[in-house]
């Protein structure tokens, strides 16, 4: 499934970045980070155009020769970026969407932990587990 899953905070700082083992970690960090450019563009453009295109799922942000970068934003200005292999054509758009939704509820649970300080890096066993399951596709 995904090779990189990242949660990015209100101020665009990374709260959580998971990178598949054996992947070029730094590069994927860069991709996740650069994905923000497109996300921001999309968010701002949507707020301009009144309409029903208010889906939290932002779809494909951009693709390089080897990766596809997908984006999602919450109403609370949190952004999720999921990166998959460009080669991986089996993934349907809807599956990506579902991954994001799962990720979102995982994140929500983290926020609901009374000991978690919003905006800080996420260090949570539950979340780790959740993401692991998510990327394993089960």
């Amino acid at each position, binding site marked *: 499934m995904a090779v990189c899953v990242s949660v990015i905070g209100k101020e665009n700082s990374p709260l959580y970045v998971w990178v598949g083992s054996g992947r070029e970690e730094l590069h994927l960090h860069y991709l996740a980070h650069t994905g923000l450019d497109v996300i921001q563009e999309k968010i701002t453009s949507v707020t301009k155009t009144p309409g029903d295109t*208010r*889906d939290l799922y932002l779809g494909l942000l951009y693709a390089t020769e080897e990766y596809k970068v997908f984006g999602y934003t919450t109403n609370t200005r949190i952004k999720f970026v999921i990166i998959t292999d460009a080669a991986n054509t089996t993934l349907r758009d809807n599956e990506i969407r579902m991954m994001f939704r799962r990720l979102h509820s995982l994140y929500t649970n983290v926020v609901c932990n009374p000991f978690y300080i919003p905006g800080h890096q996420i260090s949570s066993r*539950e979340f780790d587990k959740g993401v692991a399951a998510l990327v394993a596709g089960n």
Partner: protein
Amino acid sequence: MSRQSMRANDPKKVSGELFTLTYGSLVAQLLKDYENVDDVNRQLERMGYNIGMRLIEDFLARANPGRCYDLRDTADKIQQAFKLYLGVSPSIGSWSPGGDEFSVVMETNPMAEFVELPEHCLGLRYSNILSGVIRGACEMVQLEVMAWFIADQLKGDNMTEIRVKFVKRLEDAIPAGED
């Protein structure tokens, strides 16, 4: 996913969450106010006791369960109350041979649904308020009991278990001047 599918999270659940989160904030505040975790546990128990004293009235009014003269009834009522107020049905079990002690066992503890204890307060009995509630509520119906946690998922146990022990039956207050 947008507007129309706002089959907004089932309200029952939410107000449960509201309670859970409020409780979380409260505990956080307590941890700040008392540096000592044991004090926090104590304070939580005390609060629970106060709640219990009021909650029982609500319970009686809702469920109209009648009096109970036997610890087993009491246990059932507690079970009933958990269902009513926390939306979980705990199992009652591990009775003492004397039938004066039992456990309330929850597979999942809604109060601690999202909680993960940070290292610096592993000594915290997060849901200790529950034991207080049980004690307070029972006392209001002439039942002096002790209640305490013996297992907690937050501590890595695979379920959450509260132990309740019967102490004694409380009698009516003798009116002033008559003995």
